[in-house]
C-alpha cells in the first residue's frame, strides 16, 4: 500500500474547481430545461386529449426506461451514424435535460393531481378556462408540494452529471480520472472529487430545506 499524499491534490485544485464548475453548469441546464420539458409533458399527460396523453406517455416511458448512460452514448456516439452530430457539451446537456424532464414531468403530474378536484370545478364554475384554472389555481397550490421531490430530483441530476464523463466531457469526475492516472494517486484524486460532489449536494439539500420551511410558514 502506498502512503497517502494529499499534497499532490493542491496544485491541481484549480483544475478540480474548473471541473466542478462544468458539473454545476450542466446541472443548471438540466434543471432549467428539464423543468420546462417536465411542465409541458406533465400538462400533456393531464389535458383531456388522448393523442397528446399518449405521446407524453411514450416520452416518459422511453426516457425513464432507458438508462441515462445508454441515452448519452446513443446521442453522442450513435446519432452521428444518422448524420446528427452534437458536440460532447451539447450531447450532455440534451441527454440530461431530456431524461431529467421525464422524471420531473412525473413529479409535476403527481403534484397537480394531488390537488382537490373541487378546485378545478370551482374555477370552471366561475367561467375560467382549463388553462386559466391550471395556471392561476392549480399549479400555484401544487408548487409547494413539489418542492421536496423537486429538490431530490435536482440532487439526482447533479449526481447524474458524472455519467457524461463517458462522452469525454471534462467535468468533475473526468478531471479526477485524468489526474488519477497522471499522478499515480487515484485515491487522493477520486476522494477529492467525491468530497466536492458531497459539498454540492449538501448545498442543494440545505437550500431546499430552507425553501421548504419558508413556504411552510407562509401557508
Amino acid at each position, binding site marked *: 500500500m502506498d502512503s497517502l499524499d494529499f499534497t499532490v491534490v493542491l496544485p491541481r485544485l484549480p483544475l478540480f474547481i474548473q471541473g466542478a464548475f462544468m458539473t454545476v453548469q450542466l446541472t443548471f441546464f438540466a434543471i432549467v430545461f428539464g423543468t420546462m420539458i417536465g411542465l409541458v409533458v406533465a400538462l400533456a399527460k393531464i389535458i383531456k386529449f388522448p393523442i397528446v396523453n399518449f405521446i407524453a406517455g411514450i416520452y416518459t416511458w422511453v426516457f425513464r426506461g432507458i438508462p441515462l448512460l445508454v441515452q448519452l452514448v446513443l446521442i453522442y456516439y450513435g446519432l452521428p451514424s444518422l448524420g446528427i452530430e452534437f458536440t460532447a457539451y451539447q450531447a450532455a446537456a440534451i441527454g440530461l435535460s431530456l431524461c431529467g424532464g421525464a422524471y420531473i414531468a412525473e413529479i409535476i403530474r403527481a403534484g397537480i393531481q394531488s390537488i382537490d378536484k373541487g378546485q378545478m370545478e370551482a374555477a370552471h364554475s366561475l367561467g375560467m378556462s382549463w388553462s386559466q384554472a391550471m395556471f392561476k389555481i392549480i399549479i*400555484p*397550490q401544487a408548487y409547494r408540494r413539489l418542492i421536496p421531490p423537486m429538490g431530490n430530483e435536482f440532487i439526482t441530476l447533479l449526481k447524474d452529471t458524472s455519467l457524461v464523463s463517458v462522452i469525454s466531457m471534462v467535468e468533475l469526475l473526468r478531471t479526477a480520472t485524468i489526474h488519477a492516472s497522471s499522478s499515480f494517486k487515484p485515491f487522493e484524486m477520486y476522494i477529492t472529487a467525491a468530497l466536492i460532489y458531497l459539498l454540492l449536494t449538501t448545498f442543494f439539500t440545505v437550500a431546499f430545506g430552507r425553501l421548504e420551511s419558508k413556504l411552510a410558514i407562509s401557508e
Partner: protein
Amino acid sequence: MIIIDNISKSFGTLEVLKGVSLYVKPGEVVVVIGPSGSGKSTLLRCINYLEKINSGQIKVDGQLIGRKEVNGRLVDAPNKEIYKIRSGIGMVFQRFNLFPHMTVLQNIMEAPISVKKVSKQEAAELAVQLLEKVGLEEKANAYPAHLSGGQQQRVAIARALAMKPKIMLFDEPTSSLDPELVGEVLAVMKDLAKEGMTMVVVTHEMSFAKEVADRVIFMDEGKIVEEGPPSQIFTNPSHPRTREFLVKIL
C-alpha cells in the same frame, strides 16, 4: 330561465338521471330534496356543464348548454362558449372550494379579472361590496384556512356573485357546517332570494325551503317523483316515497 327537457345521464352503466324535466322561471327559488344518490348533485352539475348529459337538452336563458346548432345539426359547443355560459351561472359547493392560496378578497376578484377582464380596481371595489353584503368586510385579507366554515361558505357565495350571475346553484351549501353556523349562510341565501335571484338549491334545510322556496322537487332514483309548493310537499305529500323520505329527515 332554465328549461331542462327530458335529460338522462349515466356514469358508465349506472344511470343516474332518467329523463328529468324541469322548468325554472326567472326569479324562482326551487329547492331539490331527495335521498343520497338520487342524482341531485348530478342534476345541478349538468346545468352548468360540469357533467355532460347523454340525452335530452338544457337551455339557460334561451341558450343550449354544451350543444350548438351548426347547419341545422346539433354538435358539441366549443369550450369557449361553455366557459361563457358557466360565467353566468354561479355555483356554491358543499365543501366551499375556496382557493386556499388566495386571500378572501383575491378569491372574489380572480374570476372577474381573469374571465371578464375587469380592472383590478373595479374588481376590488366589487369584492368589498360583496363582502359587506355577506357581512365579512373585516375578513378581506384573511386566508380561507383562518375562517370558520360558515364564513368560508359566505365568501364562496360572494365569489360566485362577483360574476353577476343570473342563476345561482347551491349544492347542499350548509351540510358540512356545524349546526350553529348554518343560520348565517341561510340568511345570506334568503337575502338573495328576496332580491329576485333565480336559485336552484339542493338542501335538506326545511326552514329555508318553507320560507323562501317557490317550489320543492323531490327526487328519487334519478327521477323527479313529486313537485309542488313547500306547504303541500311537506304537509301533504301525494307520493308514498316522498312521505317515507320526509319521515326520515324531519
